[in-house]
């Protein structure tokens, strides 16, 4: 969802006014910060973005395909599905259990993949602010 492209074209680091005049090596673009706060933030950003994208696109995609089929091929959607209902209605009602499943999946992935990173970044930010 996010249109951020910072990983493709990393911005040069801009020192804050109170920072030291000597720019560290990783900030000038000569070496990439493989460790430390920037790396964690980057990992977190990527994890959040992929989770958001996949979750939202799956949900929207299912509905969009369903809607297109409904509007474009009414004859297909009128065919009987397992259970005796028309296929369209069957696909529509199937969305309710699918939603519950999606919610559970989202919670699990967020808990596994995003939360630990977010916790680490938050701790680093707090430490950086506590340091004079």
């Amino acid at each position, binding site marked *: 969802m996010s249109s*951020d492209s910072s990983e493709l074209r990393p*911005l040069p680091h801009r020192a804050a006014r109170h920072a030291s005049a000597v720019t560290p090596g990783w900030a000038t673009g000569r070496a990439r910060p493989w460790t430390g706060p920037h790396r964690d933030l980057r990992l977190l950003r990527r994890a959040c973005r992929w989770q958001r994208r996949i979750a939202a696109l799956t*949900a929207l995609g299912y509905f969009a395909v369903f809607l297109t089929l*409904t509007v474009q091929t009414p004859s297909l959607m009128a065919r009987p599905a397992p259970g005796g*209902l*028309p296929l369209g209605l069957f696909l529509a*009602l199937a969305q309710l259990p699918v*939603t*519950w499943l999606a919610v559970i999946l989202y919670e699990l992935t967020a808990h596994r993949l995003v939360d630990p990173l977010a916790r680490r970044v938050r701790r680093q930010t707090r430490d950086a602010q506590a340091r004079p």
Partner: protein
Amino acid sequence: MTDFAGPAQSWSLVAFCSVVTLTLLLCVITGPDREDLDEFYTGYRSLSPLRNGLAIAGDYISAATVLTVGGIIALCGYDGVVLALSTLLSLLLLMFLLAEPLHHTGRFTMGDVLAHRMPGRAVRITTCAVTLAALAPMMVVQLAGVGQLLAFVLGFSGGAMRTGCIIGAGTLMITYAAIGGMRGTALIQILKTVILLGSGLIVAALVLHTFGWSPQTLFTSAAHNSGAGPDYLRYGLQFTGGQHPALDMISTQCAIVLGGASLPHVTMRMYTAGSTRQVRRAMSWAVCAVALFIAVMTVITVGATALIGAKTIAAADPRGNTAYLLGARAAFGTHLSRTEGLLLTTVTTAIFLTLLASVASMTLACANSLAHDVLTRPGTPPLREMARARLAALAVGTPVITLAVLAQHRSLQPLAITSFCLGASAIAPALLLSLFWRRYTRAGLLCTLIGGTLTVLILMTGTNLVSGTPQSAFPGADFNWFPFTTTALVSVPAGFLCGVLGTALSGRRTGTRERHHYETVETVVLTGPPHPHNG
């Protein structure tokens, strides 16, 4: 079989009075007991995820959803079911995309979220104006609905009584918002969700029991009794009158999916959760509760058509707004035992409570925005801000009551659609772009909010809900120049485009500056404020 005559009426009257007393008591007891802004606006973020989730679900299942969508399901079958599903999808998207960033960046209102990245008075004032524009029509719809519902359930037909009901309910909603604050309204919403779901589940089970627990039998007999035959189970009944039924349907779904959950009275509940994990869990509960309710509503309203026929439903209300109640009434049969009478009363009470609670939350969202974003500046003492928030509830409520009294006899569908379209075309683009687009500038944000709103308001006058058809708000006139039911097909792209254009026109340098500024904000968007919100 369709009237609520006899003991059911007196039971309902007693139940309504007790509900009013009980909720007022709840508001007084749980209202903020210290002069603290955090407590008034968020209830100290102390609600557990389950309670918060039920409150979000309560906010989200507004009376407009229950009555209008229920009516469309009963009369149009398939199209109504799709509409209900898009309502659910909207909340799911809110959970996936916006819930956590909103919780991280917002403090009390939507103005806080947008001003977090682009501070400034212009942003706050515009946000407040859009909030009011989006919620006021919805409040008018719900308040006018109270008049209709009470007239139907209690069986009076006088115009003065209806007006009295609207004014009474309006006064109640102002009181809830002013006294209860966020915590008070949250408790009312929880109560409402529990009663609505509980009574709905019993009625749905009864309906399914009547049809031998077979969805197929239920839907086939509904199709048989709807007068439309197999068309009831296919797409196309709802938009038969329009020139482009397919586009019209897509446009409507688009408005609901994008607009439904981005309305400020729903997003304001994101700020009341304690931590990221809690907001996620709360949204899970909310989505599950809403999904359950949609299943219940589908069964009850389709059951109404199957049991008493579409003609009877349309005779009670041409748009089928009373289908949910009629379905419940029909499920219990003609001769009510005492328990059945009590259950039926619970269903009507749940709808009554839904009307009251959703209006109260919307009033609260408007009043908070007005007080926090416009009337106060940084440095205003908390005591004064709270007093202003309470006065703002009165200032928002009074014109809404007047409008509802004036508009009660017209078709209110265009007003509800305006709300959803504003949510989809102004609020959703503004939130999405400002939270996720690094180059987005202040000019872009203002363009999105103002451009999206104006597009909706201008296009809405030409839709066929406003004029040109017998069901429209002005059936006598015909200035229908935009042959659709909703404006979303044009106004949603317009909202996003305004944002992109505004950003492009503010120059490359501003864009780069915003991009650098976003880096400082990004950690907060992703992980939340370094110190948990406190005062």
